[in-house]
């Protein structure tokens, strides 16, 4: 749907649903009708819906309460009725028991039938209307009597002596029960007749049918209609009678009720009986076994509920109609009251939107609509005033624009002043206009003025200046306060009035300071004659704005005048500056020299630190073998003395010389061999001990436990036992123990000797490595050397630092390369130390070497890679690692010169060093040319310490031309 124009929106702001309606139907009528219709509908709804809901609920509640009441009343009646029935049954039992317990009956039974019949006839008044039967102890009938007339009612209900009830009575049993005889429901009471000693004389049976007469009896006690039916019969006997008092025929028991009753549940149902609607509460009648034999119902007339329902619906309808009419009337009045003023408001809003600001909205009152109309009126007035003010301002701005253009077209200060005064006079239509400028001495002097006489046009020059001179104190005041001054009526200003009037100003005036960069440069003033419009605050602020512009123009003009003088001054200052710069250059050169000095010291100390580290490592390396030597030497004393004891014991055994020598020879041979073996493990010892013991036992030796222990401890293989057994078997009996001990001590002695030997070998190796590392025996020059030798030497020296690190070597076949051996060792030391520190003591360092040619010129060379699997160097750090002093080590771990020096040494070899790194693999590759002289920079001699210093200070951003004698060409060698 097309969006309707604004006027098609109703007062509540909702979009119209019928925007296509003819517009010329008139906005007013249209709005009013729509609004009113809606208001009416809403009000009617608001009034009717809750009422309808409440009324519906109320009627529902009333009706359901009535229904419930009827229901529970019927159920209650049923309870009472059932109780009456059962009590009647019980009473029949009581009657039977009473009759049977009568002493007279017992006596009559003894006397004979006639006596019994006579007695019963006499008792009839005390007996209920029933069929009374008496049998003797054997079940033979004695008497049969209908009490209460109407024999037809009891026809066919009698019992014979063989019946279950009589048999029960003959077993002294008593019972009251309901039972079916054909399709008749009867109650029966049985009681035995006994004498004082409980001897059985006979049986009494009372029978009553539950028929219409019975129902009448219950009805009269209950006050409600009663229905009784046998379970086998579809029709119920009842107490219902027609208008003439005749009993109604059997009432049908609904099939649903029969089904429920048979299931044992009480139930309630509505049912028409005799032309009226009844609420019938049904329940089962059971016999003494609990089987359902009949149904019993109590009927209550539903008439009261039906009429209540009719009344409720009628009142609901009437009430609803009245409420609807009332709501309609109320809604009409209310919607009219609300709709009318809104219509007027709407009309007004449309008029104002059209631009008719003079439209008057004629809505009164103090409610929201009245306030809205009031606000509308205020708004219209304000709109009108704003419109007027805007028009005036427009005019002034146009004038000001013109003035600005005029001012900027001139550059000579005097001319500018005149233009300013002209523009102000024109714009403000002033009688007198003057401009003062502040000279160097702080005095205000009139730069330009213009006056106008009525009817004579404007007049500039001396006259005007004369008139303006009288206003100088006013200008002074404005310059001092640095705020514009406005006097609406000169006559009202007691303080300045006289001065102004003296200058011919007796209308209104306004003056503003000219400010430039926070300083007053002049004052402008404009005055009007008394008859003219007095200046407003807006005029004042416009003048102030203009003054700012004027100040700029005047300042510009002044500055132009200064430019010529200033240029000479500038030249002088440039000369001075140049001299200062030269001085600074000299100082810089000196600072650089100092830096070089510091640099050399730092390099030296780094080397010293490296040496200290080496010494500590070497000390440790030497310390552990020496400790081993000392321990072994100490142990050897003990061993030797024990060995001596064993030898003495051997001697004391007094063996034949040949045998003893054979033993000694075997011990020495076996002992040396065993000493060279690794020490056996504990488990191996125990295993060997068991085996040895078994074999020694088998050989028939004594004291085998000690021998087996000694021999097993030194690692004697049980398979090598036979020579021992052969040597020591037989007399003397102590020999095996002595020989075993001897052998054991001999092995211990030789083990210690081996330990010492190994330790000393290690110390010699380290000392040798240290010597070759520092090349103390070679001149410090390029020497053709095997790189692997240097790397291995370094590894030996760093063994201590690398103790928990796996070093894997992958060496290619390298030619001998000319190198500075000790300096290159420093490279390997640095790279390996770096790697070890990165690994924090644990990990793998791989060293790879090989041959590789590199550009430019396919130079033959060798490479060495030191690779670690540490955390890697962060990408942002990587480009800076070869810079001197750069370190990622924590404070105190290193000076940061290490890799810088490495680079310097490699450069000295005309080689290259690079690094690539990622987590888990950091690889430093050193490449060395096979022929350093063939390098492209061969013409240049190896760099000196001074050159190195220059390189190290390369970070400084001082122009190289400012540095003292130096050659930028050294950079070519370092940049790989």
């Amino acid at each position, binding site marked *: 749907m097309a969006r309707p124009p604004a006027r098609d929106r109703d007062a509540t702001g909702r979009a119209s649903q019928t925007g296509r309606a003819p517009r010329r139907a008139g906005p007013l009528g249209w709005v009013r009708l729509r609004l009113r219709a809606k208001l009416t509908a809403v009000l009617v*709804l608001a009034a009717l819906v809750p009422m309808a809901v409440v009324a519906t609920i109320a009627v529902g509640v009333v009706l359901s309460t009535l229904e419930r009441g009827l229901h529970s009343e019927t159920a209650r009646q049923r309870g009472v009725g059932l109780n009456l029935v059962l009590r009647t049954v019980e009473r029949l039992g*009581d009657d039977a028991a009473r009759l049977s317990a009568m002493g007279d009956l017992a006596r009559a039974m003894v006397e004979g039938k006639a006596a019994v019949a006579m007695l019963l006839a006499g008792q009839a008044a005390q007996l209920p209307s029933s069929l009374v039967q008496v049998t003797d102890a054997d079940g033979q009938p004695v008497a049969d009597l209908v009490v209460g007339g109407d024999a037809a009612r009891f026809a066919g209900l009698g019992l014979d002596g063989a019946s279950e009830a009589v048999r029960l009575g003959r077993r002294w049993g008593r019972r009251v029960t309901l039972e079916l005889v054909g399709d008749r429901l009867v109650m029966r009471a049985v009681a035995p007749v006994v004498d004082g000693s*409980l001897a059985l004389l006979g049986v009494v049976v009372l029978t009553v049918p539950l028929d219409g007469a019975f129902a009448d009896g219950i009805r009269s006690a209950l006050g409600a209609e009663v229905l009784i039916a046998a379970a086998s019969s579809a029709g119920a006997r009842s107490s219902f009678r027609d208008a003439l008092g005749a009993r109604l025929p059997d009432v049908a028991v609904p099939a649903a009720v029969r089904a429920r009753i048979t299931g044992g549940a009480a139930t309630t149902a509505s049912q028409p009986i005799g032309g009226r609607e009844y609420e019938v509460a049904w329940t089962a009648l059971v016999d003494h076994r609990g089987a359902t034999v009949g149904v019993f119902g109590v009927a209550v007339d539903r008439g009261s509920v039906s009429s209540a329902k009719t009344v409720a619906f009628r009142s609901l309808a009437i009430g609803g109609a009245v409420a609807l009419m009332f709501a309609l009337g109320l809604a009409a009045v209310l919607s009219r009251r609300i709709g009318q003023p809104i219509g007027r408001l709407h009309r007004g809003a449309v008029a104002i939107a059209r631009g008719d600001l003079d439209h008057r909205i004629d809505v009164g009152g103090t409610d929201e609509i009245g306030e809205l109309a009031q606000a509308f009126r205020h708004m219209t007035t304000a709109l009108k005033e704003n419109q007027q003010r805007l028009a005036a301002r427009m005019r002034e701005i146009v004038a000001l624009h013109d003035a600005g253009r005029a001012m900027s077209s001139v550059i000579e200060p005097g001319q500018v002043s005149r233009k300013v005064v002209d523009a102000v006079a024109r714009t403000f239509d002033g009688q007198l206009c003057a401009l003062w400028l502040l000279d160097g001495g702080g005095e205000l002097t009139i730069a330009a003025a213009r006056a106008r006489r009525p009817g004579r046009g404007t007049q500039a020059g001396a006259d005007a200046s004369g008139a303006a001179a009288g206003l100088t104190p006013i200008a002074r005041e404005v310059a001092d306060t640095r705020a514009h001054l406005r006097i609406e009526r000169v006559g009202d200003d007691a303080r300045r009035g006289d001065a102004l009037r003296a200058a011919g100003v007796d209308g209104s005036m306004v003056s503003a300071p000219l400010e430039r960069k926070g300083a007053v440069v002049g004052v402008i003033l404009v005055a009007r004659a008394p008859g003219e419009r007095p200046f407003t605050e807006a005029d004042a602020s416009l003048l102030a704005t203009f003054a700012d512009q004027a100040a700029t123009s005047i300042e510009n003009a002044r500055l132009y005048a200064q430019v010529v003088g200033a240029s000479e001054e500038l030249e002088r200052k440039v000369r001075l500056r140049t001299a200062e710069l030269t001085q600074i250059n000299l100082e810089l050169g000196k600072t650089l020299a100092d830096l070089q000095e510091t640099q050399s010291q730092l390099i030296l100390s780094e080397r010293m630190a490296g040496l200290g580290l080496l010494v500590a490592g070497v000390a440790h390396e030497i310390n552990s073998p020496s400790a081993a030597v000392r321990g072994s030497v100490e142990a050897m004393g003990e061993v030797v003395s024990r060995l001596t004891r064993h030898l003495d014991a051997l001697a004391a055994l007094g063996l034949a010389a040949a045998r003893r020598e054979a033993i000694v020879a075997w011990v020495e041979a076996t002992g040396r061999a065993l000493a060279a073996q690794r020490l056996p493990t504990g488990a191996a010892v125990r295993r060997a001990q068991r085996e040895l013991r078994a074999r020694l036992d088998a050989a028939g030796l004594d004291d085998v436990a000690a021998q087996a222990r000694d021999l097993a401890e030194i690692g004697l293989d049980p398979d090598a036992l036979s020579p021992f057994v052969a040597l020591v078997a037989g007399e003397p009996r102590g020999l095996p123990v002595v020989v075993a001990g001897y052998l054991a001590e001999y092995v211990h002695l030789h083990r210690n000797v081996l330990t010492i030997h190994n330790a000393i070998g290690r110390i010699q190796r380290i000392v040798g490595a240290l010597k070759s590392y520092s090349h103390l025996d070679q001149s410090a020059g390029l020497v053709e050397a095997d790189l692997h030798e240097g790397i291995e030497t370094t590894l030996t020296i760093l063994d201590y630092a690398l103790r928990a690190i796996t070093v894997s070597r992958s060496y290619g076949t390298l030619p001998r390369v000319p190198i500075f051996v000790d300096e290159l060792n420093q490279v390997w030391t640095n790279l390996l130390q770096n790697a070890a520190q990165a690994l924090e003591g644990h990990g793998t360092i791989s060293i790879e070497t090989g041959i590789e040619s590199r550009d430019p010129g396919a130079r033959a060379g060798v490479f060495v890679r030191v690779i670690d699997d540490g955390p890697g160097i962060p990408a942002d750090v990587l480009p800076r690692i070869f810079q001197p002093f750069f370190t990622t080590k924590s404070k105190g771990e290193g000076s940061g010169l290490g890799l810088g020096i490495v680079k310097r040494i490699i450069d000295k070899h005309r080689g290259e060093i690079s690094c690539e790194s990622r987590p888990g693999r950091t690889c430093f590759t050193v490449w060395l040319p096979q022929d350093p002289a063939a390098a492209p920079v061969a013409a240049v001699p190896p760099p000196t310490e001074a050159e190195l210093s220059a390189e190290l200070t390369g970070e400084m951003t001082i122009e190289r031309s400012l540095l003292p004698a130096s050659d930028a060409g050294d950079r070519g060698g370092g940049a790989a």
Partner: protein
Amino acid sequence: MSPGVRRLAAAVAAVAAALGAGCDSVDAVLGGGAAAEGHRLGTRDPATLVIGRPLDAISLDPARVTDNESAEIAFQVYDTLVQWEPGTATVTPGLATSWSVDPSGEVWTFELRRGVRFHDGTRFDADAVVFSLERQRDPSHPFHRPDFQYWPNVYRNIEQVEKLDDYTVRITIERPYAPFAANMAMFPVSIVSPAAVTEYGDAYGEHPVGTGPWIFERWERGEHLILRRNPAYWGGAPAMERLVFTTIQDPRQRLVALESGAIDIAASILPEELQFVDLHPGLVLHESTANNVSYLAINTTRGPLRDVGVRRAIAHAINKEPIVQLAFQGLATPAEGPLPPRQWGYHRPRARHAYDPAEARRLLADAQARGVFAPEAELVLYAPSTPRPYLPGPDRVARAIQANLADVGIRTRLVLQPFGDHLVSVRNGQHDLCLLGWVGDNGDPDNFLQQLDPRNTTLGSAVNVAFYGDGEVGGLIVRAQETEDPLERARLYARVQERVAEDVPWVPLAHTQVPLAARDDISGIILNPTGQVLYRAVRRSPR
């Protein structure tokens, strides 16, 4: 539909809902109030079970009472160490999860259930058991009271009660006694909260605190006693929310209340009301366990009654059927031995001495010939004049027996006395014949048979009022007491019953039942062997 109309519709719906809710809540309030009173007709809270009883409890301290009404409350509020399996007399774990007896048969060790709390929140442990028993056993116990009635009779064989650890208790008895476990299922040894007994002192009987399925809430003596469900009961929380025991003395009123639905269960239905309940479609009779016996005791130490032939003649002379039908009004079964048929250990003896006046006369003639019986001798028959649970019409029974005996030629003189006097007389052996009975206490056969134990014949406190001194029976009873194996015990009791049937120290008469009536929507009624109802499983099934 505009938002406004939607809002209006929502408001209308809310109003309608509020009105509906209002109706409901009004009903709820009315229903709740009525439930609290427990008496209002019609809209009672379906989760409340109301029980009408002829008498109120006397005290709720289980150690102080012997009456059935108090005992019934005790069984709801308390637990015992062991209990009867529902509907049987088999002893199963209660607050004790297991128990054992050492080979001497004198030291019983009970392992207690863990994590059980008393209704006052205190912990159930060995200390509580020791406290509950020791306050009855030890006269110097600060909470011992002289009116603890059951203990001296039933538990005097307990010598020592000891705590072994927090959940183990050892009880030492004076000699092996197998029925001891069953004795521990009886209400007097209910485990009470020591904290509550200490707090309330003598008023504890009105503030019972146990561990049972129901928590005591309120008791207005003579009016009603209210118990509330124990949701944390270790054996599973009861189905109903509340039990209200209300006292309605008049049996007729009780039945009317039941019929109207004001109560759900009516205890002690009169025999003459049975027909009514039977025929009422909305009411159901629940026959209680026949946990008793009534008998004619023959004083076997007196004159002709020493002769077993005379005693058998008496047995043959008595016709039990009319007695049961007329004097017991049908609420009994004829008895054939000392034990009720549903008691474990019951054995139907071969010798039953059916009603046979001719045989009786023959036996008497025989006795007369042997010179042990003289027809002119008059026997004294003692009977109570007040009804007992096991003997509702004692005078009628006595007269019928008199007539039966006279019929075969035995002359008797009847002495009717109030029950208290009657008991004193017969315990002193003043009678030739007497009517008496017994109500089982603990579901154990031994409980009944102590009336035939030769050890219980001390004049003045004799329980064996036949003064029956048969050594074999005595020996069997002792042996059964000292035997743990129930099958073996049953075998021993069978021999006792055979022997007693032959010797005729009694003519067993009847086992009576006290039926209770309930609304037909009530199910789950459990009767324990001593006749009290357990309400834990009772529920109301919606119709």
